[in-house]
């Protein structure tokens, strides 16, 4: 009784969807969430439906499987014009002919509406229990064997203990901000972290939330070149989300779908009043000839209002995310990352294939081993516990956000829902 009542209620909730947007699909997917029947989940932990839209690269498939397993039960996957082979098992496919850019606008809109309906239908089936939850795709096992000695694996000699799951203790390395050398934390973020451009995979070294090193492992997926104004509005919406203004961001997205001058003017005024431009530190994310983040936000507001985009000179050769991001705090870095148009971003995020051993956490460890007890300071032992990003063996692709190992464990410990 109670269970069926709960199920009935749950069916009324908007369908929580985690999105992995592929090539040319980001903007279309974002517009799906305009009518409030669907909500976009910030993390796969909050979602029930995994929407994979558009073409994916081969190397992304493993991450998609990982993300799938990170979602709690009940869960279901929908492949929308996605080519992922058999990576996602028997997941339902939704193919509405070819890409929208080949069709006229009305056709595309009808197609999007059909996807929306299908997603809602999936959620109804899932909530009512008609549709079984999808099982794990990957084995639930630790990526590295437990290597410690003794009952708790502390083994090892002296204070350092052993290396449980192949993860040694974190070591200190130099800090960019104030020189207080604490433990770095190296992890891969992406390729489908919701705050990242889809497809971008970064390996970053963090101290606290300051980025010390950033290396592009996979470039962002190419996006459809669309008109300036809707693209600018959607980019504006992403920035507003990051600035803690989800309602205004939704308004910008609505405006991108259906533009009329009066709403745009009002939206611009509300955004100015919210202090969004003032909130951004002046000079943040400044590129030669491309101004800083604050200016870019103002430009976006202007483009959204109908004026033509300001022309900017070519990017300097040296400009790259690996030099732009270090030194920024996490939230500033996310703002910077989302402030570029697709063309600029793809130039900034080119994968650089150079023999680069330095970014491996291990080298830093070496530098500090001479300290009394071997550096050993673990600013977040919590870090090395789930991360395993310190050693060469520990580099695992991060799913969307790096709790990647956890999915391999949740079933064993808590899969009783």
């Amino acid at each position: 009784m109670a269970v069926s009542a709960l199920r009935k209620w749950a069916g009324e909730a908007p369908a929580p969807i985690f999105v992995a947007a592929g090539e040319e699909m980001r903007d279309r997917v974002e517009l799906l969430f305009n009518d409030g029947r669907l909500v976009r989940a910030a993390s796969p932990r909050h979602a029930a439906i995994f929407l994979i839209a558009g073409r994916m690269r081969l190397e992304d498939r493993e991450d998609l499987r990982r993300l799938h397993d990170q979602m709690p039960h009940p869960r279901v996957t929908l492949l929308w014009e996605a080519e992922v082979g058999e990576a996602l098992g028997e997941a339902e496919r939704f193919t509405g002919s070819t890409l929208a850019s080949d069709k006229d606008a009305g056709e595309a809109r009808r197609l999007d509406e059909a996807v929306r309906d299908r997603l809602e239908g999936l959620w109804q089936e899932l909530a009512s229990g008609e549709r079984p939850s999808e099982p794990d795709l990957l084995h639930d096992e630790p990526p590295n064997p437990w290597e410690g000695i003794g009952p708790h694996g502390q083994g090892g000699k002296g204070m350092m203990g052993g290396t449980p799951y192949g993860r040694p203790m974190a070591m200190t390395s130099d800090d960019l901000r104030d020189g207080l050398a604490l433990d770095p934390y190296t992890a891969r973020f992406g390729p489908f972290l919701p705050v990242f451009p889809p497809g971008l995979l970064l390996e970053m070294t963090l101290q606290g939330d300051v980025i010390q090193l950033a290396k592009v492992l996979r470039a962002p997926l190419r996006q459809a070149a669309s008109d300036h104004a809707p693209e600018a509005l959607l980019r504006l919406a992403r920035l507003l989300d990051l600035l803690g203004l989800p309602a205004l961001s939704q308004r910008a997205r609505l405006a991108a779908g259906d533009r009329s001058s009066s709403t745009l003017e009002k939206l611009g005024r509300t955004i100015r009043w919210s202090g969004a431009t003032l909130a951004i530190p002046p000079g943040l994310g400044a590129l030669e000839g491309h101004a800083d983040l604050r200016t870019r936000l103002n430009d976006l507001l202007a483009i959204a209002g109908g004026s033509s985009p300001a022309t900017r000179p070519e990017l300097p050769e040296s400009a790259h995310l690996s030099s732009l991001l270090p030194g920024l705090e996490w939230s500033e870095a996310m703002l910077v990352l989302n402030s570029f148009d697709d063309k600029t971003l793809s130039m900034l995020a080119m994968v650089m294939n150079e023999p680069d051993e330095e970014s491996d956490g291990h080298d830093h460890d070496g530098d500090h081993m001479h300290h009394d007890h071997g550096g050993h300071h673990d600013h977040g032992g919590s870090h090395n516990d789930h991360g395993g990003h310190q050693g060469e063996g520990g580099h695992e692709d991060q799913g969307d956000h790096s709790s990647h190992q956890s999915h391999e464990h949740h079933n064993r410990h808590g899969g009783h829902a």
Partner: protein
Amino acid sequence: MELIAALLLLLFLSVGFAGAALADGMLPALISGQARPSWRRPIAEAARLLQTQPIRTEAPDALLWFLAPALYLALAIIGLAVIPFGPGLVTIPSEVGIVVWGSCEALTIVAVFMFGWSANAPLPLIGAYRYVAIALPAMLISMFVLIGAALPAESLGFTEIVEAQRTVWNVVRQPAGLILFLMLGLAISLRGPFDYADPADLAGGTTADVSGPALLAWKIARLAMLVSVSAVTATAFLGGYLGPILPGFVWFLLKTALVLVVLVAAGNLFARVPPARMMGVIWTMLLPLSFLMLLAVGLELLLWG
């Protein structure tokens, strides 16, 4: 009397909670210009979360992870318990009510930190310590502001503070104090411009690895804290249960509702400043401002009190 107050507390909490859930659902939709969602939506959302599998990360601090939402909720209730709902209607009459509330604020920071830390994952941890960095100085500010509210009453108890506002409400004495206190309200109920623990740029921050019932518990605790902080604001600055004609409890309810709506709206209308910049603003501008407010109230009482 205390028993009646305890019953009233339950009533107030449930009414306030329902109102908070509704406001939290409706106001963003209104601001975004979307179709208005139905009042059933929060309940549906809760039903969904109840049926979702609770996720366990690798090697979390399971005890603290479980306890953090409970602690957060308990603090909201304790905060409400020292507030008078009407003349003499207090669940726990305390002559040091302000200090009790201050402890609740401080322990809230502990609860949020515990929640983010114990998940044993990077994004929740970043959310947790970022929140501590912002909320600790914000709490200091709120204490100065509250002392300013206690000065005219010559007491640390909330009942005396309300009674001292019979002549003039504290909001007239220190208007900036009210605004500073509302900022604290946003900070400890984790919303909008002061939500440094669960923001979008961290994929949900402390909640990024939480699913199912635990996430529901956290959301409930957040809303309860919103009710609690609105009630404290109404008591300390808007004269609490004082008001003509209507009974005290109704006035109190109305004022709390007003503050609550203001908080929810502000949470959706103001942009979040990146944490490092916010730290600068808090320590160099807001904290000195709260000193000045305190000084001004002290001088006023000394000269004309």
